[in-house]
């Protein structure tokens, strides 16, 4: 297997466990795989190399998959999946269409980057979105959650670009880098990753070997 490991997973929630010395390890439980290799991108055909993984089998009634996708699945002789994601690899060796990736790919101590879409918070104010301070709520204050001053006066006479203001917050692709795999339960198809993971429970998550960072 190539040095870079990757898999698609679902975030199930958080819990904790104790180490031998009594310290607590906070972990996020991810239901990883099983993923099927549904296609390969090759230099000859696509001018780059990548592995396409399918996750979550689609329903038979064709609700989840459109016709062009279905034909692609048929051509490669795999089942139809709801979720398809590509992962760039340098070397396609060890991957074949129809192959399966499961949670036991990972082992305890692996450092991984976890990517997911964060929870959408809608149109959020500056306190929630940028961590601004709140004003006093009493003593006649009318500046409770207002953003405050957004600049100076006649000079520069404009608001600087990048000024942090209210706006749409969340529902954005977030990568948590260098999380440590603290547990692998292949029988349950679960991996436990130290710390938090973006997104809601049951959200789709990509787990990839960390790009930077040293294995402890």
């Amino acid at each position, binding site marked *: 297997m190539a040095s870079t490991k990757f898999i698609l997973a679902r975030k*199930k929630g*958080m819990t904790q*466990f*104790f*180490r*031998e010395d009594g310290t607590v390890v906070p972990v996020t*439980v991810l239901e990883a795989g099983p993923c099927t290799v549904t296609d390969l991108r090759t230099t000859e055909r696509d001018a780059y190399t990548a592995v396409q993984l399918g996750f979550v089998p689609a329903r038979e009634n064709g609700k989840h998959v459109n016709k062009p996708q279905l034909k692609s699945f048929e051509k490669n002789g795999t089942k139809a999946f709801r979720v398809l994601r590509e992962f760039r690899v340098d070397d396609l060796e060890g991957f074949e269409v129809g192959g399966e990736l499961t949670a036991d790919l990972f082992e305890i101590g692996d450092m991984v980057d976890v990517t997911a879409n964060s929870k959408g918070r809608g149109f959020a104010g500056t306190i929630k979105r940028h961590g601004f301070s709140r004003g006093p709520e009493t003593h006649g204050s009318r500046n409770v959650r207002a953003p405050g001053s957004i600049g100076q006066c006649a000079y520069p006479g404009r608001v600087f670009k990048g000024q942090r203001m209210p706006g749409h917050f969340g529902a954005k692709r977030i990568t948590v880098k260098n999380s440590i795999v603290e547990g692998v*339960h292949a029988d*349950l198809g679960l991996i*436990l990753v130290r710390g938090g993971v973006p997104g809601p429970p049951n959200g789709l998550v990509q787990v990839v070997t960390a790009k930077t960072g040293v294995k402890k």
Partner: protein
Amino acid sequence: MDIIQEVEKLYMKEETASFKVADVVKVEYLIREGDKERIQPFVGQVIRFGGSGIRKTFTVRRIVQGEGVERTFPLHGPRVTNVIVQRGPTKKPRRARLYYLRDRVGKSASL
């Protein structure tokens, strides 16, 4: 079953000492002294359970030199090696959390 509960089960103690609120217990707690480990007992009355699953805790109250001392232990923590019931209450407590004991001294604080 909920998958989180299932995961917690894997890390929980298979059997925990059985004791109830209002029991007087001796908690055997492993502490580290330099590079040696020894058991430090803590004797007192259980006044509450908190949390659930692997995060379940219990609080033990005792009077040390006239001052009330409470310690909360994780039930599934590996440092809590044993909990021995020394004495049960004379009558069943009517509530799950015996906070009212904090306001009582001497005989009225006994159950």
